[in-house]
């Protein structure tokens, strides 16, 4: 069965390592924070100027001066720090962030990503996504395998305007974990009960399949 949003987030959380500084995008990526393994410590960065994002505030305790990059009210963890936007992106551009997780409209087998604009329809802007994908050491895309119309989101080239080129390293979808290698997509894991055939059928590019593909352990 394909994973729901929380399932995708749970699988991505397994990629976190102790001591990581992590930037989580809006949507499914934000949910990853709920599944950080208890035996490790990670610090979440918010590009509007916060290291050490805590849980959402208790009811009645929301502080308008304390928000995340999705403009939601948040809290801080002990040891957190505030800073301005240029310093925040110095952290990002300077390669100090260990992992970036973000959503996408499309991802290609070369690691290109589109995520910010649908010409003539939606023009919200790229926000920090272009800076993040251009600079992060490790980028994981959290996405559904196909779009609302059932069309593959993993393909050989993006139809929509690009956010970055040759940058995505790994994709965790509702169906599979796929690495982006020098030779293209490589199937690493499949969602529980999902067949390799289904994954190949719903992917719009060639996928390398080597040996038995294990099911995700969630």
């Amino acid at each position, binding site marked *: 069965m394909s994973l729901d949003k929380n399932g995708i987030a749970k699988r991505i959380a397994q990629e976190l390592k102790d001591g990581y500084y992590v930037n989580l995008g809006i949507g499914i990526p934000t949910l990853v924070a709920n599944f950080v393994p208890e035996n490790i410590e990670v610090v979440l960065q*918010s*590009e*509007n*100027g*916060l290291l050490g994002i805590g*849980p*959402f*505030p*208790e*009811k*009645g*305790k*929301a*502080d*308008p*001066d*304390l*928000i995340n*990059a*999705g*403009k*939601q*009210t*948040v809290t801080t963890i002990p040891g957190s720090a*505030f*800073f*301005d*936007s*240029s310093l*925040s*992106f110095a952290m*990002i*551009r300077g390669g100090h962030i260990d992992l970036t997780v973000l959503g996408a409209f499309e991802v290609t087998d070369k690691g*290109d990503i589109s995520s910010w604009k649908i010409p*003539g329809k939606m*023009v*919200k*802007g*790229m*926000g*920090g*996504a*272009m*800076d993040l994908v*251009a*600079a992060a050491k490790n980028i994981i895309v959290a996405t559904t395998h196909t779009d609302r119309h059932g069309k593959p989101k993993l393909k050989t080239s993006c139809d929509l*305007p*690009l*956010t*970055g*080129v*040759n940058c995505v390293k790994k994709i965790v979808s509702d169906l599979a974990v796929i690495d982006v290698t020098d030779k293209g997509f490589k199937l690493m894991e499949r969602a529980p009960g999902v067949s390799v055939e289904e994954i190949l059928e719903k992917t719009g590019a060639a996928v390398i399949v080597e040996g038995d593909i294990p099911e995700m352990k969630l």
Partner: protein
Amino acid sequence: MNKVVKNAKEAIKGMRNGQTFMLGGFGLCGIPENTIKALVESGLTNLTCISNNAGVDDFGLGLLLRKHQVKKMISSYVGENKEFERQLLSGELEVDLIPQGTLAERLRAGGAGIPAFYVPAGYGTEVGEGKESREFNGKMHLLEYGLTADFAVVKAWKGDTMGNLIYRETANNFNQAMAMAGKITIAEVEILVPAGELNPNEIHTPGIFVQRIFQGVNYEKRIEFETVRE
């Protein structure tokens, strides 16, 4: 040295139609509410506005857009504002969308006297079209330029009569870099104190960057997405 002006109306004195101004804030967090109101009341028009976001329909920068006072926006993310999107798609409003980190660094560079610099963000995308590019350490970068403006308008938590500023929590965001990049920088603050009362160790923006400062009033501090624990 006393940089205190009476209010927002006095702070924007000398601002003319067609000028460029910067507005601090991220979403509705840390925006100069008083000055935005004064700009709406001023009726100034044909303005170019540099701001990370565009407010919402009925608050923040949205108020200026609604009155068609802005002809061009330079921003990174403009969702959350339907009127903005409408004006953009219909071609009434000129918009330059810039990656957020590039925007922040362009402001910092502008204020620091750095005319241009290279960053990787946007290479290979439409952001890079027509820009000089160059490879450093095996990676392609785009040449980006420092940004300045006729006026920078920032919001701080505390300020003193010499223009020293301290921001609060994530309400710092773009304010600190913009404060450096205005030919005239206007700061509105929640708490204005005499010089000497702020701890010099805690100053974010030294007063040299600020020309006019005033005590803001009636802060609404609207929350865009109030999210609480379940």
